């Protein structure tokens, strides 16, 4: 069927240069195989939206020159420390930074899923984030008195991209409790998913499974990708490949090292995919 006839290179080809692309953090479900395919195809000028932060995906795309704008609450490599290619790009000023805060990104996506122009948000007043975000506005609670709020415009990504444990042939994708993936799919114009396995059963048939499932209604295409989140982990399936991520972290600290990493693990073998 059309939904599941894709491979990862075809998904990467359907994510256009300049797309605003929503990506989850490393502990959620990362479609790393497609990230590598995007780098292989030389994607350009992407606008990453971290939901609400990004890790390895963001660092690799930034390092490979695929990113023009980074909108996120943080870039983090977990226990290893700060993402090296992101740090380099921030210091060089080579990408546009839209520093945000986690609930503002969720609120922007929630506005998009509701089809409304903005969401009001608590906090933020007095933060320099607000000073630098020309797209955020100060507002007032119309139901209160002297109660200032911040208004966050809807974030409508062109693409949501993530990895799940299981999808079916109708494009239904099981996410369990990783509901930020549901929010991303609701808000985005197109949603591309990779799955550890594509099953013949209907994931909406059993109510218990359906409760943790994104309906195919929101899904543009699914590709099967075994170990598709590698080297980050997939909750309930496999842990992060800590040794490989540490290797990445060491390599990515220099320009040459990062290029070697790309040559060894992204460009050279199709083996990983």
């Amino acid at each position, binding site marked *: 069927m059309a939904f599941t006839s894709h491979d990862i290179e075809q998904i990467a080809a359907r994510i256009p240069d300049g797309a605003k692309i929503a990506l989850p*953090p490393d*502990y*959620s479900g990362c479609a790393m195989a497609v990230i590598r395919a995007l780098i292989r195809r030389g994607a350009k000028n992407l606008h990453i939206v971290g*939901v*609400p*932060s990004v890790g390895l995906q963001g660092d690799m795309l930034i390092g490979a020159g695929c990113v023009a704008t980074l909108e*996120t*609450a*943080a*870039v*983090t490599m*977990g*226990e290893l420390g*700060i*993402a090296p290619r*992101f*740090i380099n790009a*921030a*210091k*060089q*000023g080579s990408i*546009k*930074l839209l*520093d*945000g*805060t*986690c*609930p*503002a990104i*969720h609120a922007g996506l*929630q506005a998009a899923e509701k089809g409304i122009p903005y969401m009001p*948000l*608590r*906090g*933020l*007043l*007095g*933060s*320099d*984030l*607000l000073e*630098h975000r020309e797209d955020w506005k100060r507002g007032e609670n119309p139901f209160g008195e*002297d*109660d*200032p709020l911040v208004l966050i415009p809807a974030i409508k990504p062109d693409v949501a991209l993530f990895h799940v444990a299981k999808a079916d042939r109708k494009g239904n994708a099981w996410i369990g*409790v*990783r*509901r*930020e*993936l*549901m*929010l991303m799919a609701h808000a985005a114009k197109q949603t591309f998913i990779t799955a550890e396995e594509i099953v013949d059963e209907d994931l909406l048939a059993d109510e218990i499974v359906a409760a943790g499932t994104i309906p195919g209604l929101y899904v543009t295409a699914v590709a099967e990708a075994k170990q598709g989140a590698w080297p980050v982990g997939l*909750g*309930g399936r496999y842990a992060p490949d*800590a040794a490989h991520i540490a290797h990445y972290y060491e390599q990515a600290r220099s320009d040459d090292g990062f290029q070697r990493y790309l040559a060894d693990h992204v460009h050279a073998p199709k083996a990983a995919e």
Partner: protein
Amino acid sequence: MTDCKPEELLIASIADMLTGLRHVAVGNSSPIPGAAALLTRARSKGELRVSLLGSRKHTAFTDGGKELFDCAAEGRIDAFFLGGGQIDGEANINLVGIGDYPQTKVRFPGSFGSAYLYFLIPRVILFREEHTDRVLVPKVDFISAPGTSPANVYRPGGPHALVTGRCIFDFDKAAKRFTLRSVHPGHTVQEIRENTGFDFDEPAKVPETPTPDAGTLALIRGRIGEEIAETYPAFAARVFAAA
């Protein structure tokens, strides 16, 4: 108590600040606060809920990334932890960078949920192991989240204490100043003055931070070490492997 590691002292000290609470959440990159929350939970006989971001086993959340923030806004989280690449004497925190934004000469990971949670969670404990005048500065270069707010800003939450590798400070919101609460064993007030970039108050006699008793240490090295290892394996291996 001579064989208590610095991390164990910090875990026990933070855990004592959480006694009697109902729900404590712990954010990213926070192994010591995470272990502290799990320690308080272990001693609370099931009264305390802990939601550890990044954990599958130790979390009460089922509604995705936004739930922590919605939960905080409804007053359902009593305590949380924030750090900072820089923290100043008015408890402003900087998780963005040093120098002129956006092209900062030093870049930190980013603000995470700080610009929101600092306003909404009643007991925010600032935690930063490194206690130097590089971190504890007179004024932060970038305010990710302000320590205090004008009266008309909705703000049930804010800073409760600042815990470092050398000492614990309390924060006085009205005075917008830190007061030294206790100094960790092996450290001195003079050394803390020399390594703190902002001015702070101190009592006539500054107590020493109490070290954990044998039962607490055993609990930390046993059950808590195992529980925190799920989310922070490198930390657990480093601190508890040889314990």
